[in-house]
């Protein structure tokens, strides 16, 4: 894996954490953590003249599920897309600030965005399988990244990814069938299998269950809980209950700023910031 040579030391002891929190007192709660996978500091994003996210500093811990919540247009998806440089694909978008993955700057010139996206995979709101077979959907990433050396290894990786995504039992007899022929929930799990197949370290999920029925949603949520053992997951969701169910930490965004970050248990019972309280209780007019 080719990565940037630029590394930064990040203070992780308790005293340093306390001083970091004090330096970013505009965000209520605990935006930083001791065992960070991602450390993002003073991140700003502009879409031409539109200042979409403003001075956001947030850590994403290893093997945790962090939920990003907030009203439409608050910048949560924009922030999510900074984490694997998906905003690079938007010509008018400019990202500033520091985004470190395991201490390495993901925006460094030496960082290949394709390789970054293999480490930081993404699942979108609408299932978007390729117009290929179920097998080829999952095999696509490993093939382009050269992760396997022969057909048997690839078969094994495809099967393992489908098992992890909780889809294998349902599709094992029709791997050659088109991925687009699956139900919505199955398609989304196929996309998760496709993401897992390139062995990422972080999975970004942008409203992964918003187009699914309650049963398919429950399966995805259960899957997120299982995936947490091996991956760091960042999920954007409009469903408060989903955020409460699947995440350990929750971050509340409002008009491009990070208002509050805390343990999910605390955010949904006793948020500290008035705006968080208003949002999660449905008091915004």
């Amino acid at each position: 894996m080719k990565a940037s040579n630029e590394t930064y030391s990040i203070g992780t002891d308790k005293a340093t954490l306390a001083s970091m929190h004090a330096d970013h007192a505009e965000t209520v709660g605990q935006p930083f953590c001791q065992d960070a996978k991602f450390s993002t500091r003073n991140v700003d994003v502009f879409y031409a003249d539109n200042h979409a996210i403003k001075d956001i500093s947030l850590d994403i811990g290893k093997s945790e599920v962090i939920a990003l919540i907030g009203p439409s247009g608050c910048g949560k998806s924009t922030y999510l897309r900074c984490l694997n440089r998906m905003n690079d694909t938007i010509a008018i978008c400019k990202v500033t600030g520091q985004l470190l993955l395991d201490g390495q700057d993901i925006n460094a010139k030496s960082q290949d965005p394709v390789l970054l996206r293999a480490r930081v995979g993404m699942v979108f709101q609408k299932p978007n399988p390729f117009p290929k077979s179920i097998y080829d959907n999952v095999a696509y990433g490993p093939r382009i990244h050269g992760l396997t050396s022969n057909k048997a290894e690839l078969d094994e990786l495809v099967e393992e990814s489908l098992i992890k995504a909780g889809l294998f039992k349902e599709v094992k007899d029709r791997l050659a069938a088109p991925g687009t022929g699956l139900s919505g929930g199955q398609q989304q799990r196929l996309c998760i299998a496709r993401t897992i197949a390139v062995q990422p370290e972080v999975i970004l999920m942008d409203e992964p269950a918003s187009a699914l029925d309650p049963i398919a949603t429950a399966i995805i949520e259960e899957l997120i809980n299982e995936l947490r053992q091996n991956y760091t997951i960042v999920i954007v969701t409009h469903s408060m209950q989903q955020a409460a169910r699947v995440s350990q930490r929750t971050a509340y965004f409002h008009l491009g700023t990070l208002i509050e970050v805390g343990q999910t248990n605390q955010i949904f019972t006793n948020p500290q910031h008035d705006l968080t309280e208003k949002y999660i209780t449905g008091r915004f007019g």
Partner: protein
Amino acid sequence: MDHLEFNKHTSNTYNEELEDIRNMLLNMGGMVEKQVQKAIQSLLQGNAKLAKKVIKKDLGINAMEVKIDEECTQIIAKRQPAASDLRLIIAVIKSITDLERIGDEAEKIAKSALYLITEEYSGEYFVEFEKLGNLVIKNLTMALNALARLDAEEALKVAKNDDLVDSEFEKLNNEIITYMSANPVELQKAVRLSWSSKALEKIGDHTKNICEYVIYLVKGKDVRHIDIETIKEEYF
């Protein structure tokens, strides 16, 4: 977060549902408060008619508990409340349990009153019993006011007052025991008075519980089983 606004949701229907629950809770509180007053009055004045009324009215309080519980269940099912809304529902569900038990204690006092009237009790220690009763009613009224106004400071004050209720109860109960030893013939009646004093002490405990729910609702901190001084230092 000390500033709670339960009427500011985007959904007006939700505002109304929460408002209804709060109103029902306060009505129930008012009913229970009257029950305690009347039970004490019936005992002190030897008013059998009033005591019977108190006993009958307890059924209404029980029904109210069931009704509010049902409304809270509906809100949880339909709205999945969070944060202060969730704490409100939890506080209501817990408060009505204590209010219902206060109602039961009032009923016990009324039943003792009927016994003492029938047995023509002399009225020994009624002055002390009235003093304890007044203290308990004052605390209950203050707790219900704190609940209505979502006033955590007031709730803390009332919770602290329970120590006085406990010490007054201990004092009265010791005196009744001494009286029993000296007047064995009055034993049965004195036991009833002792039970009634204990009922007042228990009302004090339930009142303190309600205060703790007010603090939980307003401050978001569960302060049960923590001494008052620690609560004051850490959460106020």
